[in-house]
């Protein structure tokens, strides 16, 4: 134990030296080094967040466009033709455009918003602040991590403007569709740009992830043992491990795809006659790509949901004025989820012709992941139980997160069971499931975090009335959009269909699709309102006047209201207890920096 305590102290000492260097820098800071090529983790976090918000608007707008098509397949919207020309001929979204939209919606939301925007923002902002470090282990790499993400964004945006359009083979880009330009417009230049963009994104994610891991392991302040870390940090730690171990596999899969596309190799191609043209490729396996893709793809959903879990845990505990229930079980279940995340990927492939015996192993491991998930839910419920709950917008989003995680998690038990998956695979049921459990729940975690840490980021508050409207419309809207969608899936309606009216089996849901479209437009409008609130409040929001506005225990609230580069003006505070002493011994909260009192009760 004493060894464990010593290590961080030593590191702190070495970092103190660094800090002096920073001080020298501090005085020569220009606009460019302060706001653009900044190495301050807080600024980098804000850069990730704002880039993520811009991407979320783009990705969300895409969904509104294709929802218009889904809700009103026979209607003409001339305004679409005004903006998109031949992609929306006659004011109707053309199939190529529709598939480009859903592909970009998925790619943007999964990677650029819910990975970079979520863990990029909060890992950067919170890790040094909550563990008591002046900055990341490698601030330069950290800055590069953002700029690689920025370059990935530029490449992806540029693919939207080329004449053949962006990638259009679904966000999973399964070959041969994504490998053959003859098979789809979107598989021409747009697909190469998609791969390049994702390669840059993987580099960004690795630079960030390695930094997060080494910072958490090496740079904790004195007294901050691993078991005293707030759950946000544990969650971000496991997220980074997931990313570091799985993103390279995606990259390798994509490089092979790039070879198949441009160099005539046959990793994924075999026995193909496309558009009347017989291709020479033989011996490749299209399924190999799916294994490589989902080896990232599945951990990816946990990369999205773990930070949201950490944020929700922290916020629920702070605002219930009660310790998080079962801290060690929470850490343990995060760990279990991380390990299992690597062992379940083939549950996305039950109907690809996978050996049924192999499938059965993946069923077992997949349903096993429900156990740690259940533990987490019960622990959140117990955290609320007998608390004294303050409903800030952040609290509401955290509660909404738990509700959505339950709803979407339970439908995962349907899909993880291969027998049911035969029927539900690739139907709207899947769309409903993952939007609730990872899409909306991930966004809720992100919103909760933004509302909670906005005062730390900008020294001002978000307008809370707009916050409450934002929460309630989004919460009600999310359930209205995605709950009834399960029924479409139960009827076997395939996903990625743009017009069901010619089908006998799937045309019975036209009213429902219309309702979903109207609600999505409303929900999207309210998100724009949030964005407005965000930018308005950066400059005009109510000023934060107290150092610790939420009465929170964690270290970030011991820094000045507007901390400079280096975070603490004097020495980094020492930590004496875990982060969750709320309501202990009749005291509302006891910050981590307060030494254990002589008469304090032990638990």
């Amino acid at each position, binding site marked *: 134990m004493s060894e464990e305590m010593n290590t961080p102290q030593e590191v702190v000492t070495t970092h103190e030296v660094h800090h002096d260097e920073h001080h020298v820098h501090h005085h020569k800071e220009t606009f460019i080094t302060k706001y653009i090529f900044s190495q301050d983790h807080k600024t980098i976090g804000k850069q990730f967040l704002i880039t993520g918000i811009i991407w979320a608007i783009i990705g969300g707008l895409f969904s509104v466009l294709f929802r218009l098509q889904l809700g009103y397949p026979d209607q003409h919207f001339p305004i679409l033709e005004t903006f998109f020309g031949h992609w929306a001929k006659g004011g109707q979204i053309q199939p190529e455009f529709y598939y480009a939209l859903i592909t970009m919606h998925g790619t943007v939301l999964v990677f650029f918003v819910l990975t970079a925007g979520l863990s990029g923002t909060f890992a950067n902002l919170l890790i040094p602040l909550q563990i008591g470090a002046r900055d990341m282990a490698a601030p330069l790499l950290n800055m590069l991590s953002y700029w690689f993400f920025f370059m990935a964004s530029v490449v992806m945006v540029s693919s939207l403007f080329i004449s053949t359009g962006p990638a259009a083979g679904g966000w999973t880009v399964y070959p041969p569709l994504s490998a053959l330009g003859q098979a789809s417009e979107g598989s021409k230049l747009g697909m190469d740009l998609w791969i390049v963009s994702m390669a840059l994104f993987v580099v960004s994610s690795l630079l960030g992830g390695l930094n997060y891991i080494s910072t958490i392991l090496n740079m904790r302040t004195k007294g901050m043992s691993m078991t005293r870390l707030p759950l946000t940090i544990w969650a971000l730690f496991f997220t980074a491990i997931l990313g570091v171990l799985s993103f390279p596999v995606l990259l390798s899969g994509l490089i092979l795809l790039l070879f198949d596309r441009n160099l005539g190799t046959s990793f994924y191609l075999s026995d193909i006659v496309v558009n009347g043209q017989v291709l020479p490729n033989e011996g490749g396996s299209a399924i190999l790509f799916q294994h490589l893709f989902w080896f990232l793809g599945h951990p990816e959903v946990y990369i999205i949901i773990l930070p949201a879990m950490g944020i929700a845990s922290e916020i629920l505990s702070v605002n219930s004025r009660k310790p998080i229930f079962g801290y060690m079980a929470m850490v343990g279940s995060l760990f279990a989820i991380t390990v299992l995340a690597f062992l379940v990927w083939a549950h996305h492939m039950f109907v690809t012709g996978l050996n049924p015996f192999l499938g059965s192993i993946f069923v077992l491991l997949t*349903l096993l992941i429900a156990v740690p998930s259940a533990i987490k839910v019960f622990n959140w419920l117990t955290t609320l139980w*007998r608390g004294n709950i303050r409903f800030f917008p952040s609290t509401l989003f955290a509660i909404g997160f738990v509700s959505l995680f339950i709803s979407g998690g339970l439908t995962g038990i349907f899909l993880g069971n291969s027998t049911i998956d035969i029927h539900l695979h690739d139907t709207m049921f899947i769309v409903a499931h993952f939007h609730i459990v990872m899409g909306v729940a991930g966004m809720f975690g992100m919103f909760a975090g933004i509302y909670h840490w906005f005062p730390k980021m900008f020294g001002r508050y978000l307008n809370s009335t707009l916050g409450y409207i934002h929460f309630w419309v989004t919460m009600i809207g999310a359930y209205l959009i995605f709950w009834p969608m399960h029924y479409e899936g139960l009827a076997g309606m395939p996903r990625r269909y743009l017009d069901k009216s010619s089908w006998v089996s799937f045309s019975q849901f036209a009213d429902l699709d219309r309702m979903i479209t109207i609600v999505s437009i409303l929900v999207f409008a309210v998100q724009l309102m949030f964005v407005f609130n965000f930018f308005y409040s950066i400059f005009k929001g109510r000023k934060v006047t107290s150092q610790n506005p939420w009465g929170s225990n964690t270290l970030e609230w011991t820094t000045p209201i507007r901390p400079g580069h280096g975070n603490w003006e004097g020495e980094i505070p020492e930590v004496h207890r875990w982060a969750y002493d709320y309501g202990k011994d009749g005291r509302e909260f006891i910050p981590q920096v307060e030494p254990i009192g002589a008469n304090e009760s032990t638990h």
Partner: protein
Amino acid sequence: MCLDGPALSGIRGRPYNSLFMQTIFIIAILGLGFLITFQIAKASEYVAVLRGEEKARKQSNKVNAFMLLAFLVVGLIGVYYCNERLKGKILGPSASVQGVLIDRMLYITIALTGIVFLITQICLFWFSYKYQESDKRKPYYYPHNNKLEMIWTVIPAIALTVLVGFGLFYWFKITGDAPKDAMIVEVTGKQFGWEFRYPGKDGILGKKYFKYIDPAKNNPLGQIWDDPANHDDVWMEQEMHLVVNRPVKLIIGSKDVIHDVGLAHFRMKMDAVPGTPTTMWFTPRFTTKQMIKKTGNPKFVYELSCDQMCGKGHTGMRGVVVVQTQDEFDAWMMDKKPQYYVANPDKDPYAPKPDSVKTVAAIIK
């Protein structure tokens, strides 16, 4: 966005303009609504500051706590209402023997997860309401309880074991070997349609090689004509005929990209992968005619949908499955000419004769 349908069938001058105006109008209303909301929100912030922030916060705390409870109650009613509205639209009972097992597994899962859903959601929103901030309450310092945590590790584990047990029992039944007497049909997906091949009298599908594919030479699947097993294979497009109560094994492939043979009524699905054949088997329970009666829909047909995104024509990649009695099937199959004779008319012993169909039929009988 509720625009008037029939008036818009073309892109003509007037409706086009009025539509444009309508869109602008809607955007303007949204913008105005937003401005008003923002002004109210701003004002309420000032009022809160004037009246005392703490007091205003406690007020909004009560409102939100009540809203959470209301959300639970209305939400649960909504779940019930949604089910009432939509349960009749999910295709009715399975049309295959194997699908019955899948449906049963589905209902077991719905029952079990439904209970968990109710308990946890009710706890979540009820606790939120009940334990809203109050000056009278001191929060209960309750960091952990090993016994409780053990209980909610073990109970889900048991419940999931039950689900895995049932699931795998059915899974192996469904994915196990097809019965020996199963009919064989080869299904091939392409952008954007379906092709079918029946093995003919010998019950064997002849060999094929993708480089021989040439629709111009009447060889759409690349059959190798040297293989005698190919000589009686029958090829057709878009429509597959099956026999009721007779197991059928589909041998599935694709010519270009990945497709998926989706049979929603039979609860069956399998990817069509170029270069890697896959299989699936099932036993239809009802003929198409029986389903017309059961559904009361004279236009009812079993549909074959492509369930794996395959390009711009994905949505229209529709096939039709006709389930018949054995006699009806035999009668239908009788006049189908093997593709070998279509591709090689010189080999067709009956080609020159005008009454060839009858003769072939006689031979088959």
